[in-house]
């Protein structure tokens, strides 16, 4: 897949939901305006987060959330939107920058005039706060679950594995690195390690890997989309899905439904969209008012077919916000 596609799909990922709701001032005495810029508006998970942020702001009653329509990781469009928000002197800007360096002077200008600058997922030492989720702990949870599965199903390590990555976005890599380390320690060959975050490349990579390595039984996608493509390849190859470990990240709707219906997906490290959307507002308010944690993270958590209640709860976000 192209780098653009990877970036888009990953950012979609990045915008998925997560965590424990807001902290900051839910009792604001003034009216605040917050701009939320995500450069992959086309991604369904991003839409859910944006809608959740707007809904949470409405709940609070004193916050207006401005959204931008940047899509396809277009830096020019994102910058134009941010410039207009800075000119407008909004109270806070939450942004997932396409290129942090290209927005540095804008950040300085914004902060110089009193606008708080929070980054989404990507960190910046000069920021006033951050909104996001912990890819590292999500990756460790996934690796721990994989370790259990290996111990139960293939303690001899007589299988091979495939993992998808995103080399252009190093901040997202901690999702899969713990699993790669674990596989190496378990003596399981990672026979395919390629960039991919979409269904079509997941399908293609799994097909290729299965032909070269018929003992392939583990496929960990950088996100659920890649893993869902792989699931299709395993189904087409008529491999017993009880003997496979096919998992990804984000809690994409299709993956959650597969877990709910027990149609072969093994696990997803999900980000609760509603909480993540709420944290966009709450963390920004915390930065503005100085009251609360402006860097509160939304935890990702692993769901398996056994977690039917959690899955139902996660799926509710898609129903409510139309992801």
């Amino acid at each position, binding site marked *: *897949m*192209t780098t*653009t*596609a990877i970036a*888009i*799909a990953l950012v*979609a990922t990045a915008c998925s939901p997560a965590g424990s709701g807001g902290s900051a001032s839910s009792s604001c005495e003034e009216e605040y305006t917050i701009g939320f810029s995500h450069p992959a508006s*086309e*991604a*369904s998970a991003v*839409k859910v987060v944006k809608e959740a942020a707007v809904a949470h702001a409405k709940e609070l009653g004193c916050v207006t959330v401005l959204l931008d329509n940047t899509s396809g990781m277009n830096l020019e469009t994102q910058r134009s939107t941010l410039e207009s928000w800075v000119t407008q002197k909004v109270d806070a800007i939450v942004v997932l920058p396409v290129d942090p360096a290209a927005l540095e002077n804008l950040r300085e200008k914004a902060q110089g005039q009193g606008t708080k600058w929070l980054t989404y997922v990507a960190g910046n030492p000069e920021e006033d706060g951050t909104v996001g989720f912990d890819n590292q702990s999500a990756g460790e949870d996934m690796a721990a679950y994989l370790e259990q599965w290996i111990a139960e199903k293939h303690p001899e390590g007589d299988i091979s594995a495939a993992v998808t*990555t995103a*080399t252009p976005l190093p901040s997202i890599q901690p999702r899969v690195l713990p699993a790669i380390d674990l596989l190496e320690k378990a003596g399981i060959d990672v*026979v*395919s*390690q*390629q*960039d991919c975050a*979409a*269904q*079509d490349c997941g*399908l*293609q*990579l799994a*097909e*290729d*890997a299965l*032909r*070269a390595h018929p003992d392939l039984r583990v496929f960990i996608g950088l996100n659920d*989309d890649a893993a*869902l*493509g792989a699931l*299709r390849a395993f*189904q*087409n190859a008529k491999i017993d899905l009880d003997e496979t470990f096919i998992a990804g990240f984000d809690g*994409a*709707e*299709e993956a959650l*439904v597969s877990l709910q219906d027990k149609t072969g997906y093994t696990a997803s490290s999900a980000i609760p969209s509603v909480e993540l959307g709420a944290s966009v507002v709450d963390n920004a308010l915390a930065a503005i008012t100085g009251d609360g944690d402006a860097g509160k993270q939304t935890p990702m958590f692993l769901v398996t077919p056994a977690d039917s209640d959690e899955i139902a709860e996660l799926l509710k976000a*898609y129903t409510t916000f*139309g*992801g």
Partner: protein
Amino acid sequence: MDLQLVILIIATVLLMGFFAAASPMFFTADNLLNIANQNASTFIVAAAAGMLLMAGYVDMSVGSVMALAGVCAAFVSIDYGTVAGIICAVLVGTLVGTLNGILIGQIGMSPIVVTLGVLAAARGLAQLLSPGSLYGLPEDLIGMGSGSFLGVPILVWIAGVICAIFWFVSARMPAGKHTLAVGANPRAAFLTGIPVKKFVMVLYIVVGVSVGIAAIMQVARLGSAPSGTLGLGFEVVVLTAVLLGGVPFTGGRGSVIGVLIGVWLIAVLGNGLTLLNVPTEISGIVTGVVLVLAAASSLSGFQRRRRRPRRVQLSARTAAVRVSK
């Protein structure tokens, strides 16, 4: 045979030879069919887009139109079944192709600007219709994407038949010569009686139909229709294959066979690198180098193009002399 085509074939064979030596799995019937299956939709669209470029026109909207047609087809197939879904995909492709054809062929707007506009609009529309991924498609549609007939994947059969039609039309029918004539000199083509505007419009419709077919094939293969990523970057793959296959950006030359070999070369490259599990960074470098080397085959075309104007000038002078006599 065209020297450029010969060089492209040699490059492809050498590449296949390399991968066969490097991976025992590569040169097996199973893997070769796998490559063909994975790229079945690319073959179809590239053949159509190749003919369009031979006429001197380009379509940059194919990726997003694939998403739009795929999403519409998925919606319809879930409610009304596979056949309705297939018809819907072809219909959407045809409608967009007609729109492109009218704006470019009939009205004379810029092909790149119009199709880039449609690229953006079609993706937006697809995502408006379905913000997320559409799944739960009929089993027979999914079966089309994963099934096989006589040991050959169904998608490969479909691609084979459609590409054969494209080859026949381009190589054995007057339409093929008309395409090249329009690409070489639209005014001269018009003066010889070819209805250039209508012809270009028809070519865009053909591309649209082929994208519609490719869309349903891709949706069937994936078992879902992700509006955000379906066909993303597909236009670049198609254009690369067409140019690599020996069709110049200015049109007037090329063959469907060359385009199909261009698709195959890119497909083989991707498959071989995956089988060898070449790291992404190295993979990018290797892909770039191989494509540039393969594109060196167009050198022969360049030399011929340089000579051609002199011949044209000479024949024009000869004609002028004849008239003056």
